[in-house]
């Protein structure tokens, strides 16, 4: 072996532990999931056939996609407003704003889901207030349905939408906005023709991030859906833990991973993915 070759092998030895860790804890389990999905209960693509034949499977996928899209759109709209306000705020106020965005992230997702249940249930704060004010006669069905899931998920996702958009807005040179006004553009036109297009990479990044997170979301939909509205993650857990249908569960898990990879692949052609995960700037 040449001297250069030995040095090369030495370097490779250094990353070996990380490589082994990755194989044992990530790649092997995923490979196993893939294997189970084509071997249980019998060898073949029978589980995948259900994607086209079973209306129950199709309904779960449809529900998941619908909830994820609505969540993504709402989180982007709310997040854009917040990120815009933070960008325009004075430096001192910016710190407080960012703290307010981050604090929910530090609170357990379980706590937040139950907090929403308390607020939204039949005798919850929202229904009681509305009933007391005479606005409604019957409690509104605010939880244990799609509405409840979306409320909880949007609440969880907004910080993830704000951060990439904020990063992208902060990169916009304020002189460009001044220049646009100096050249005769009204405030509305400055926003539409300069600010919005320049913040678009952040919007796309935030959208991808929120959508991917939403696809595999488990706790919030499980608690706020009350078992009546099933999303993919909860459905998988139901198949494997309660119905012991490993083949079907792992098939859906494989589809979930595939969906995430496809989403990333599509958007990596549009935006620089490193920006989404914070390595940009």
């Amino acid at each position, binding site marked *: 072996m040449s001297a250069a070759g030995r040095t090369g092998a030495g370097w490779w030895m250094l990353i070996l532990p990380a490589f082994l860790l990755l194989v044992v804890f990530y790649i092997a389990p995923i490979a196993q999931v893939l294997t189970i999905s084509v071997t249980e209960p019998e060898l073949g693509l029978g589980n995948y056939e259900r994607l086209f034949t079973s209306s129950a499977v199709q309904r779960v996928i449809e529900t998941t996609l619908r909830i994820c899209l609505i969540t993504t759109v709402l989180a982007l709209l709310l997040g854009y407003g917040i990120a815009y306000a933070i960008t325009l705020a004075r430096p001192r106020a910016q710190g407080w704003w960012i703290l307010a965005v981050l604090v929910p992230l530090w609170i357990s997702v379980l706590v937040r889901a139950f907090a929403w249940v308390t607020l939204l249930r039949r005798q919850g704060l929202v229904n009681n207030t509305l009933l007391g004010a005479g606005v409604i006669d019957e409690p509104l069905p605010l939880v244990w349905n799609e509405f409840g899931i979306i409320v909880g998920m949007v609440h969880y996702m907004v910080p993830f939408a704000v951060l990439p958009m904020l990063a992208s807005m902060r990169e916009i*040179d304020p002189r460009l906005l001044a220049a646009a006004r*100096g*050249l005769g553009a009204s405030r509305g036109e400055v926003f539409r*023709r300069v600010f919005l297009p320049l913040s678009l990479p952040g919007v796309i990044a935030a959208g991808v991030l929120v959508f991917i997170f939403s696809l595999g979301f488990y706790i919030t939909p499980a608690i706020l859906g009350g078992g009546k509205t099933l999303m993919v993650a909860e459905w998988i857990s139901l198949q494997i833990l309660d119905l012991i249908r490993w083949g079907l569960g792992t098939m859906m898990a494989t589809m979930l991973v595939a969906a995430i990879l496809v989403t990333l692949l599509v958007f990596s052609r549009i935006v620089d993915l490193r920006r989404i995960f914070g390595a940009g700037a």
Partner: protein
Amino acid sequence: MSAAAGHALGLRGLTKRYGDFIAVNDVSLEIGQGEFVTLLGPSGSGKTTILMAIAGFVAPSEGAVLLDGRDITPLPPEKRNFGMVFQGYALFPHMTVAENVAFPLRVRGMSKADRDAKVRAALDLVQLAQFAGRLPKQLSGGQQQRVALARALVFDPSLLLLDEPLSALDKKLRAELQEELKALHRRVGRTFINVTHDQEEALSMSDRIAILNHGRLVQAGAPGELYERPRTRFVADFLGKSNFLEGTVRQPAPGGFMLEAGASRLAVAHGQGAALPPGTRSLLSLRPEKIALLAEGETAENQVEGRILSWSYLGAGFALRIATPDLGELRAVLPAWKSPVAPAEDLPVRLGWSADAAVPVEEDAA
């Protein structure tokens, strides 16, 4: 681009305070039609704040901005119709060169056909027609600067405001673009207001220079007038280099006096009417290039003996630091090709200058 004459701009007692800090202090200035005026000053002198007040980005605390005698102080920037070239150009990175130049026309609701014709004319004016489809980041600094100029001129603005337009460029390119900017000013015949801290740029391009310090207008005038007749020590020091001679006024007469500094008596012919009272302290500014090194037997109206402290060769000339007994250290710059002596450290020399070379200046108010 029509050759319509530029507009006149007036500043009346313009003042801008930020809390206790006074950024601009009671500045009044008249800028005539088609003039090229430069606001010159060190950083923090208030020059950019004045430009931003003219553009409408900064609301003055007191005073007014007038366009052709009409008060425009309350107008927002987008209603003023002023072209502006920002520091760093502020080209829109997501638009091509042509889209950048078309931007001011688009927000004015001009039809596409008219827009295209105007954009082409503006890009021709700055010789960038072949780059219309490129993005700003694909252009060099000098080309970006010309795009910014085309964008600022395409909508026939009443004024063109330039905020340190050349500061991002290297020295050689800066000299080239100074020429270009001056030629452009002559071609479009508009009023240009330029802000810079670069005195060479100000001297070479402007019809008139307004010198600012600590938010105040110190002196305004043609470049030559400011250079030859600085009013204060700051102006003499900031615009070019200067020696300062301090002494007592003796034998005052209309247009001149003798300055007594230690054992030396220097003849001063300032050519100004009022005679200074004898015995007062006076400060003179003497430009280094007006000091000559006297050859054996040569005489001058003022002669001082000294010793060379240090010297450097600049190609075209020598820069000398000379110690004198009565006037302290003097700086002199002389053409290298006709220097009567070869400079050397500690060499005794005789310096000479004419009576009208030094001009009295005021000390600046603190």
